[in-house]
């Protein structure tokens, strides 16, 4: 190793700021253009990693099973999370119940890379979300509109995903939420200062964040989509609608050929603007997950309504 000019290579004892918001939101920047896959064990995590997942999301049951089996859905068993962490080198995220800060503390103690305070699990608090500023580990949260997204960011979320309707394999809610968030943002960009104050009131969102969105024309954190993605074309659709990356839950491991479908969704997420590539990626994947039409679900079966 040839030393550089100014005695470089010497140890610099740096002053180190850990877990700044920039560091927390920065990991989401590195996940952009990627696919984050739900996994329930180490074996699935390995399949996801081999297929090109940018990260995996550990949870007790995939949303389709939560829907089918009912009951209270909770944080995953730490043994499974540790097994997943040992099995892969990509980031490992894990879900905690809305408002369940003790589950979040456990996940932080396990050193997961991101905590998803998720409506897919049964909420623990019907009034309050976790105070995410309290944590060193960054949080991702779901949102159905801009106000909800900014409330979560105000609470410390460092990444947002549109909620969609998890476990259905029906893309319609993901489209609705992504379009809603993006159109809410566009509307802010043409407001004057007085109107922004009113918009903040109507969105029930912090005024500073509303001003920032109006100025930048985007959220201050990375925006992924989730809930209902089952095919490569679904991923390409969401990316063209403005998602910066994709979460896939039941869509992979509830399909006929998880490994191929996972790789195909990764490919379509990279080449979302190239229809020929998306077409090729879509070929011969076998059956998609068993799907549910969201429109035919009862109000109380909807997960996206959880969180406030």
């Amino acid at each position, binding site marked *: 190793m*040839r030393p550089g000019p100014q005695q470089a*290579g010497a140890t610099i004892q740096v002053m*180190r700021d850990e*877990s700044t918001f920039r560091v927390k939101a*920065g*990991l989401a920047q590195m996940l*952009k253009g990627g696919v984050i896959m739900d996994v329930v064990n180490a074996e699935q995590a390995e399949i996801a990693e081999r297929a090109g997942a940018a990260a995996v999301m550990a949870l007790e049951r995939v949303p389709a099973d939560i829907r089918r089996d009912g009951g209270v859905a909770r944080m995953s068993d730490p043994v499974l999370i540790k097994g997943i962490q040992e099995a892969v080198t990509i980031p490992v995220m894990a879900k905690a119940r809305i408002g369940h800060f003790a589950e979040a503390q456990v996940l932080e103690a396990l*050193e*997961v890379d991101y905590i998803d305070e998720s409506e897919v699990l049964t909420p623990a608090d019907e009034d309050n979300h976790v105070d995410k500023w309290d944590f060193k580990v960054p949080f991702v949260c779901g949102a159905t509109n801009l106000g909800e997204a900014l409330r979560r960011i105000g609470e410390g979320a460092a990444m947002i995903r549109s909620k969609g309707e998890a476990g259905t394999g029906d893309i319609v809610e993901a489209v609705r939420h992504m379009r809603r968030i993006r159109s809410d943002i566009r509307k802010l960009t043409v407001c004057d200062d007085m109107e922004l104050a009113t918009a903040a009131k109507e969105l029930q969102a912090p005024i500073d964040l509303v001003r920032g969105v109006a100025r930048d024309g985007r959220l201050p954190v990375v925006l992924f989509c989730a809930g209902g993605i089952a095919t490569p074309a679904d991923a390409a659709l969401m990316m063209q609608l403005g998602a910066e990356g994709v979460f896939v839950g039941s869509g992979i491991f509830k399909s006929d050929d998880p490994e191929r479908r996972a790789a195909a969704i990764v490919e379509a997420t990279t*080449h979302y603007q190239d229809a020929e590539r998306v077409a090729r990626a879509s070929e011969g994947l076998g059956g998609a997950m068993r799907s549910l039409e969201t429109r035919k679900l009862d109000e109380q079966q909807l997960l996206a309504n959880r969180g406030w």
Partner: protein
Amino acid sequence: MSVQAAGRLRIGVLALQGDFGAHAQMLRELGAHAVEVRVPADLQGLDGLVLPGGESTTMTLGIEREGLAEPLREFARTGAPVFGTCAGMIMLDREHLGVMDTRCRRNAFGRQVRSFESPLELPGIEGPPVRAVFIRAPWIEEAGEDVEILASVDGHPVAARQDNVLVIAFHPEIAGETRVHELFLAQVAQRSGV
């Protein structure tokens, strides 16, 4: 280097996955023409290339899928400046593309809870230290004779140069820090005779 001069430079940014958008935006703000690279044909006519941060496993698989490994090596062999950050630094090492005589240790600083930012002195950069953001960052575990180490953290190299290739383990592009990209563009401009 003037903004006008940089405007003639075509810089590719590997866009398989990761924060390529932040790099492209910074390069554009500095006056260069940024081109997203997803397939080998995208490498044509470029004056320089950036390999961004992202997930190194995802990026490795993407390079394989697209048949980009040899075209990327070939591009680096022409002597055109190449700049790798974080996962990009890993892609260029012996165990990946083999463009640089280094071996990187992935996630060397630990999981996300150990991610950090700190001021860092870099030779060739004037003014206050660079605000270096390290996210699940690698470091250089081994480097050959021809590799010049530019900066280290806790004794571990996090910035280095070998001929036309510059690598750093951190992310100036998400900290609004333009000076490392300016350094890279100056190198491109010099080679392209702009």
